[in-house]
């Protein structure tokens, strides 16, 4: 068996790393509940295993998603990951082919050129050395790109890049050193003993002409081994933990594991899978519009991983989900943020609200739940009531006198147990009414109804419901003059993806203008998000201003949304009139008549009414 003392740093590092990962991952496995462990066990024996492998190849090695977002960044990641993977794989093959019978410990292929400086007897040696040199070059290009990114991230179109911690610096430095040192070691070896190809050979010739190659050769191999060893030891304590963990994450996800309301091993896997690539930083409105650069997902995940979470930062997120939709690793950031908020709170719920009856239950076909916020935008409420009347719907206005709130804000506040109590209370009232359809004007309510209420009745946001009424000719819509731009509220987009209905509905009434890139999955938060507790009014206003600017850049005459919160936020900063889609529908109902107020006015010309016209 080939051996030299210099392989020790590499070998010990590798043993440490493998040991560490084995312990960590085993612990995670056993900390899962029974059903999750079952899922993992079943997963290994199913087709899911193969699909996971495919994704690992595409994402962990090729970094396809990053590539699609940012080609240069994708190439950088790919050259480092895939290049290194091939170096190891083909290196192993090379040593196997060269000495098929000998014991082949991991260090032999890694330091192949040390042990077999000039393997001339080996039939395919020219092919192998060429390939290995080519791969080394490939990886070195990646290293150079990474270096450029660290120094000047704007070259990648990135405005922000993550900050490094001590463990990261050590790992990063050793990682960057690995490949140049390999180049040096192989080049000196080539200069001293021959056997180098186009890269190592020519570099060797060059170096050999300046330095005494033979005496530089051995220290270079030591340095190379030390860099590898250092990297392996630093890896679990640095962001590079994502390299092995992402593989575990892909398997887990394919095996059917998801985030729950409390922290699980899956959460740990996700937290450790963040490479802090920084893609989330630039998508965050709090960063580019609000000027707040401490709360983005990469930082939050880091803070959670190192137990350094600050409530002020955790609660300063809009939870719009923009970062999540761009995360190349596909980490379920929103759930992790919710879990963190729950962990930051520590108190049993206060069920005092259940003691008093909130509202008498009416038997009805349709429940209308306006939502707390809609009470502050009476125009939306009034529009919905007008439509219900027009369509002659047997409706129960559940929170007419104020409800107990849908529970989503409470969840966002990190009081999951309290939210569950509220959900249960509302749920029992809803079921008691015997209604078949639940309509809400508030996307915040909609999301929690759809995701948490577990109702076997239809749950519709008013955009969907109004379209249904129009399509079934229950209401007749006339078109109105002007062009409108539609803004997707966060809570109806990305996760829920109600995109088609509002546009079809709006299209029946008004000419639709495009919103450029900022629509659907890439929609912007209005800044008024209930998920955010810490942001000041100024920050919220600047987020809103930025969003309105981007949305109305096309010159639409109306900014239409379908969320009372968004409406409130935009109204404050928009020069273009802001309106809810329901208000437009209500207006379109009455196109041939005057506005309802005006109708009464014509019948009874009392003074108090005429006053409306005078102002």
């Amino acid at each position: 068996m080939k051996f030299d003392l210099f392989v020790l740093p590499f070998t010990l590092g590798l043993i440490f790393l493998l040991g560490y990962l084995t312990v960590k991952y085993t612990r995670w496995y056993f900390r899962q509940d029974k059903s999750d462990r079952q899922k993992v066990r079943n997963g290994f024996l199913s087709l899911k295993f193969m699909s996971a492998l495919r994704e690992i190849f595409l994402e962990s090695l090729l970094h396809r998603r990053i590539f699609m977002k940012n080609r240069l960044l994708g190439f950088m990641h790919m050259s480092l990951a895939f290049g290194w993977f091939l170096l190891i794989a083909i290196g192993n093959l090379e040593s196997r082919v060269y000495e098929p019978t000998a014991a082949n410990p991991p260090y032999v292929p890694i330091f192949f050129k040390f042990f077999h400086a000039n393997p001339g007897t080996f039939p395919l040696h020219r092919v192998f050395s060429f390939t290995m040199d080519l791969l080394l070059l490939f990886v070195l290009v990646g290293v150079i790109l990474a270096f450029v990114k660290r120094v000047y991230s704007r070259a990648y179109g990135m405005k922000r890049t993550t900050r490094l911690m001590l463990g990261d610096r050590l790992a990063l430095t050793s990682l960057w050193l690995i490949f140049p040192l390999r180049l040096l070691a192989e080049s000196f070896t080539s200069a001293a003993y021959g056997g180098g190809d186009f890269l190592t050979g020519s570099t060797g010739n060059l170096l050999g002409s300046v330095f005494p190659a033979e005496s530089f050769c051995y220290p270079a191999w030591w340095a190379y081994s030390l860099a590898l060893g250092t990297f392996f030891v630093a890896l679990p304590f640095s962001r590079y933990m994502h390299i092995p963990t992402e593989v575990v994450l892909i398997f887990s996800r394919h095996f059917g594991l998801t985030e729950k309301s409390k922290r699980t091993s899956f959460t740990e896997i996700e937290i450790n899978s963040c490479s802090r690539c920084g893609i989330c930083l630039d998508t965050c409105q709090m960063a580019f519009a609000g000027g707040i650069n401490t709360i983005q997902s990469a930082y939050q995940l880091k803070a959670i991983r190192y137990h350094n979470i600050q409530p002020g930062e955790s609660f300063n997120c809009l939870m719009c989900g923009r970062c999540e939709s761009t995360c190349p690793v596909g980490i379920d950031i929103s759930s992790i943020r919710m879990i963190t908020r729950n962990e930051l709170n520590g108190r049993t719920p206060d069920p005092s609200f259940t003691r008093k009856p909130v509202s008498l239950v009416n038997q009805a076909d349709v429940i209308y739940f306006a939502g707390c916020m809609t009470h502050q935008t009476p125009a939306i409420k009034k529009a919905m009531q007008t439509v219900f009347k027009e369509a002659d719907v047997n409706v129960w206005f559940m929170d007419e006198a104020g409800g107990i709130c849908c529970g989503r804000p409470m969840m966002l506040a990190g009081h999951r147990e309290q939210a569950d109590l509220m959900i249960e209370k509302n749920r029992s009232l809803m079921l008691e009414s015997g209604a078949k359809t639940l309509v809400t004007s508030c996307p915040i309510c909609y999301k929690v109804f759809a995701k948490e209420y577990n109702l076997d009745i239809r749950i519709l946001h008013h955009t969907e419901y109004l379209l249904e009424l129009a399509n079934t000719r229950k209401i007749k819509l006339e078109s109105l003059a002007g062009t409108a731009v539609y803004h997707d509220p966060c809570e109806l987009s990305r996760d829920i993806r109600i995109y088609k209905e509002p546009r079809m509905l709006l299209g029946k009434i008004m000419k639709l203008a495009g919103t450029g890139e900022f629509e659907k999955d890439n929609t912007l938060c209005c800044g008024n998000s209930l998920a955010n507790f810490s942001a000041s009014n100024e920050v919220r206003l600047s987020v809103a201003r930025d969003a309105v600017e981007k949305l109305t850049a096309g010159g639409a005459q109306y900014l239409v949304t379908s969320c009372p919160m968004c409406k409130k936020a935009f109204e404050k900063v928009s020069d273009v009139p802001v309106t809810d889609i329901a208000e437009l529908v209500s207006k379109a109902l009455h196109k041939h008549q005057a506005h309802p107020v005006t109708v009464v006015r014509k019948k009874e010309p009392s003074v108090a009414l005429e006053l409306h016209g005078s102002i």
Partner: protein
Amino acid sequence: MKSVAIIGGGVAGLEAAAKLYKMGHAVTVIEKNDQLGGRLNQWHALFPTRKPSGPLLMQLKEQVCEGVNIVVNAHITGIEKNDDGFAIKISNNRLITANVLLLTTGFDIFEAERKEEYGYGIYENVITSVDLEQLFKSGNPILTAQGKTPERVGFIQCVGSRDEKVGNPHCSKVCCITAVKQAIEVREMLPSAEVFLYYMDLRMFGRHFEELYKEAQFKHRIQFIRARLSEAFENPDGTLQIRIEDTLLAKPLKMNLDLLVLMVGIQPQKKDGNLVDMLGLERDSDGFLKPEDQYTAPFKTGMRGLYCAGGITGPKTIEETLIEARAVAAEINGFLSRRKSFIGHEQFVMEL
């Protein structure tokens, strides 16, 4: 003869014009509307005396009817400053030149529609204090949109005042006493109605204000509730349900009203064509024109020969506005008599 142009023919402008004319200056009043009198035209009676506004308005107009040049329906298209004073371009290609320019353009009234949760323009029985004053002026009875005599009327203070969310952090100063006055007037017109006044703080700072407040309490049985409205609801019959916190009892309170009056605030003029921006003058943190010094130079604007008075520098009572108008006239007079170099103008309205 030295000349003064006054932009804004309201209380401040008319009073200053009359005084400056008496001091021997050529005065031109430029008014954008078709009649003089400004906001006073909208008003029925004055606080705290409850005297009708008509005689005051008449007197203000009469004292400028001889000798003072009046230009109405004047849309200002540009103002130029030169060594000799100002050249003011107005619509119909006319040019007015003057040695001194006095800005008495006043203020704007808060657009109540912007407080959507209060329902103005959405609910039928929500009106503003300006609407109510005009109703008093018309002499018509107070009726709801349904044509009924209201049995309960509520006055909501601070609509568009002391409210950062609508960009008006300042106190409009006159609404508290106006609400007390209007509440009394409503009670007098509707003796069987209950009248409620919802306030954050009652700022009865002026002479006889406190007495009027007390009168409203004991003589007119107006009920004062310390609260600020969060939102109003419309009942099926068109009446309104308001939702407040009775802050002195720390309990939420709801009640029905037949008519809701919003005491709309006073805000700086910011719309296109406002002179503060046209002249590039500095605004204070509340958006009103910033005088050179609040104490020592309250009428100076930082531009030589350019003066200001009245509502342009913040909410004021009519009393205060009149005093300012007289004071600014005296100051302008002093300025003009020190400036011997000014060329006098006989004919200072020119057709271009």
